[in-house]
């Protein structure tokens, strides 16, 4: 399965994600420039964390105007796998590919910490390797990670099982402890925690590895 890691100016977790794919799950992966106009040949698109355009204006806002996004939207609409992590999640909400928005953390400060997450829905392309309600340890590092959506949207998310991960302890004040959500078709996932930083014991946790393995296994099932 061939992955594209999108590189926006200022993205700074692009290489972390690249290594997670190359060394963690040993799949082909390429960095794709934000000016590129094609995602032909890729099976999955990964939007990395970091500070695209310095997080100026609003996190993810300026990136959502880059040339590559037309392709990302097409890709998502074709039902292919799109994963946005941290700033990638913010970009996906700015693009409208995911509902809601990410606003400043409740306490107003940036938080870097490894937190416990609950796998809410383990029957998706991103989570099938986890047990239902499994608790995993994954680092967060964000200043604007508080998930917000209105009541109606929340009801829809719940009714349609679109919530993938919740914080065990609500670190940033997110609605319903939401740490990661999917679109209706569940081929697009955005999450604030960084699974790509949790793929080796030596870095503190390898609980993120199963997320990437789930994607591979899903693709295998689709192809068969």
């Amino acid at each position: 399965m061939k992955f594209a890691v999108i590189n926006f100016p200022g993205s700074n977790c692009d290489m972390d994600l690249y290594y997670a794919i190359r060394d963690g799950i040993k799949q082909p992966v390429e960095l794709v420039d934000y000016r590129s106009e094609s995602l032909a040949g890729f099976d999955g698109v990964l939007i990395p964390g970091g500070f695209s355009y310095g997080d100026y204006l609003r996190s993810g806002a300026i990136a959502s105007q880059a040339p590559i996004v037309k392709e990302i939207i097409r890709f998502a609409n074709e039902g292919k796998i799109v994963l946005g992590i941290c700033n990638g999640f913010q970009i996906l909400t700015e693009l409208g590919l995911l509902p809601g928005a990410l606003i400043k953390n409740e306490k107003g400060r940036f938080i870097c910490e490894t937190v416990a997450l609950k796998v809410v829905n383990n029957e998706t392309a991103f989570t099938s390797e986890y047990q239902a309600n499994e608790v995993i340890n994954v680092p967060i590092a964000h200043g604007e990670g508080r998930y917000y959506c209105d009541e109606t949207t929340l009801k829809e998310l719940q009714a349609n099982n679109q919530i993938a991960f919740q914080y065990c302890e609500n670190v940033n004040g997110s609605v319903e402890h939401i740490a990661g959500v999917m679109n209706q078709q569940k081929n697009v996932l955005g999450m604030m925690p960084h699974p790509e930083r949790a793929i080796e014991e030596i870095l503190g946790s390898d609980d993120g590895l199963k997320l990437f393995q789930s994607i591979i296994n899903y693709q295998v099932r689709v192809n068969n």
Partner: protein
Amino acid sequence: MTEPTAKQIKDEKLYQQWGLTDWEYELISAKILKRLPNYTETGLYSVMWSEHCSYKNSKKVLRKMPNKSDRVIAGPGEDAGILDIGDNQAVVFKAESHNHPSAVEPYQGAATGVGGIIRDIFSMGAQPIAVMNSLKFGPLKDGQTKHLVNEVVAGIGGYGNCIGLPTVGGEIAFEDCYEHNPLVNAMCVGLLNSTDFKHGTASGDKNLIVYVGAKTGRDGIHGATFASDEFTDTKNKQRSAVQVGNPFIEKLLMDACVEIIEKHSEWILGIQDMGAAGLVSSTAEMASKAGSGLILNLDKVPQRETEMSAYEMMLSESQERMVLCVKPEFVEDVLAFFENYELDAVVIGQVTNDKQYKIYHLDQLVTDIPVDSLTEDVPEYDREEVQPQRMIDEQDYHFAPEITDLAATWIEMLQRPNIASKKHFYQTYDSQVRADTVVRPGSDAGVVRIRGTKKAIAMTNDSNSKYVYLNPYVGGQITVMEAARNIVASGGEPIGITDCLNYGNPENPEAFWELDKSVEGIASACEKINTPVISGNVSLYNEYNDVAIYPSPMVGMVGLISDIDNVTTSAFKDNGDLIYLVGQTQDDFNGSELQMAQMGQLKGNLRDLDLDQEKLNQDLIRQAISQKLIKSCHDLSEGGLSIALAKSAFDNDFGFDIKTKLTTAQMFSETQSRFLVSIAPDKQADFEKMLQTDFEYLGTVTTEPEYKVTTATDSVVVDGKIAAKSWKEAIACLMK
């Protein structure tokens, strides 16, 4: 504004306002130029001859520091120093102070301090891999100090998080003397994947000078002389000197510079960042080092503001700018390369072979002076020094603490801001970006692995100015050794240091004595453990209304971990493990945190540090770690054994049950050269056999968070949950 004429500058002594003395001005006009310097030229001299750029007061002292070892590839004199770490790889590091800018505008001052030190690393062609910082403030009492702390911490995080470098360590201390003169020191470590590097030089007639990065505005004009200027109430109003950082642009600049040097080394002859005194400092140094001259055309400089004068452009400290020296045949490639990164890049000048520094502005020649006169001809001062009277008066004083309730004192000490957990601050720094951080803030040294190898780099920032205040020489030694113990406790071999020397006014003989003696102390310790000083920075005139800060040298040490399996942390690992204190304990209470707690002031002398004993203990710990005998290791520092024990227990909610020969008071003694270790029970015989030094078996790690301690004089049980809560929440509580 019309610029004053050369004659007006002389007659009205305008140069004095820029920090040049009569004697220096005379030297420039009579001996060097043999004519009166014009407005622009006088400005260039005043900034290049400031302490900040020239080290005219401190050079003589700095020469005392060792800067050679088998590993040194580049030492002081470049943007940063370089040490060989084998396999054709090298580690590059430097620290820099941003004290005065941070006092005036804390967020931007701290942020641009981080940005500046990162540029020093990538201008060597190295990929920055981690940053650290050392901060000192007044006590967390009033709103103003809390605001200052919040803003400085936010500025450091704001820049480091955005550019995407992990902050893996640092320190924050609080003492009265820093209330109006906080210290903000930042360090950056980089990795060079080849032992060739780019010097910051501009050589070869007709080669081109290329400007890259952010546009030039009127930021921080005269920032360099300002940084070397004493602080008083009135100068607090000097607000034009504020520089604003743009970490987004620096991220692009960093990636571009690392890539161009790695992939297109042949295009570039030299590269340097524009730091203090911006364009003039960078270009003059590049030309002078190469023995060349330079012509610059300021009309080509990308400008953010209109109608800037030559003086303003040359001295502007706008951030995120670099200077390159490029061969003409590659200049189109270079410009296109940066354009692809959406960075401004333009040719602004040319190298010559006449050793003159010539600047054109609006088609006029506004400067024509020997380039070496800006960098080489700066006078060096030999300052008067005398031992501070307080040292003589207090020579025989020994602080004797009284502890009536060990448990209460223990909790009280855990809550002291200098000892309490700093997580409230460092959790706002991304410590894991780049996915290489093996040990995050919270243990002894930060550890970053080198991907694709078994190696890792350990790094730490240390200073304990209380000791340096009581005895600069011994305090200087302790500063180095404390850093070394942090590296050793983490499983590393200390290989070199950088420093920030933060002191008061060098024209005050007592302050100069402090500088001189503490540098001698640093030098002797570095020699002992073979850690050359490969880079550093001096910040003098740290005073407020004539009261100086404690002499505050900060040491940034880097260690090599040759096998990542040797990485060791301070946290206890398993129930039943055996706890040992390595090293001898004496009644060392002068300068201790306990003295501050009980007496409210520092007093007395320090005992001499036995460097042989110190080195032996460090070597034994390293040996024990490499033989896999040790499960946790922590160096003893502020608060002594009791604090080290508690901190080792907190992480995994353990307790301990120990019995010691020490008195209750000695539980808080700060005797140097000591480590607290825990080992698996089956390693006891091997461990004790190899430990050819003083040690004491203390007891065991327990599952219940209860601290059972029997000293020579007391027996207590402390509730570990309360201890942990006190330590973890003290700072957040004070910051409310």
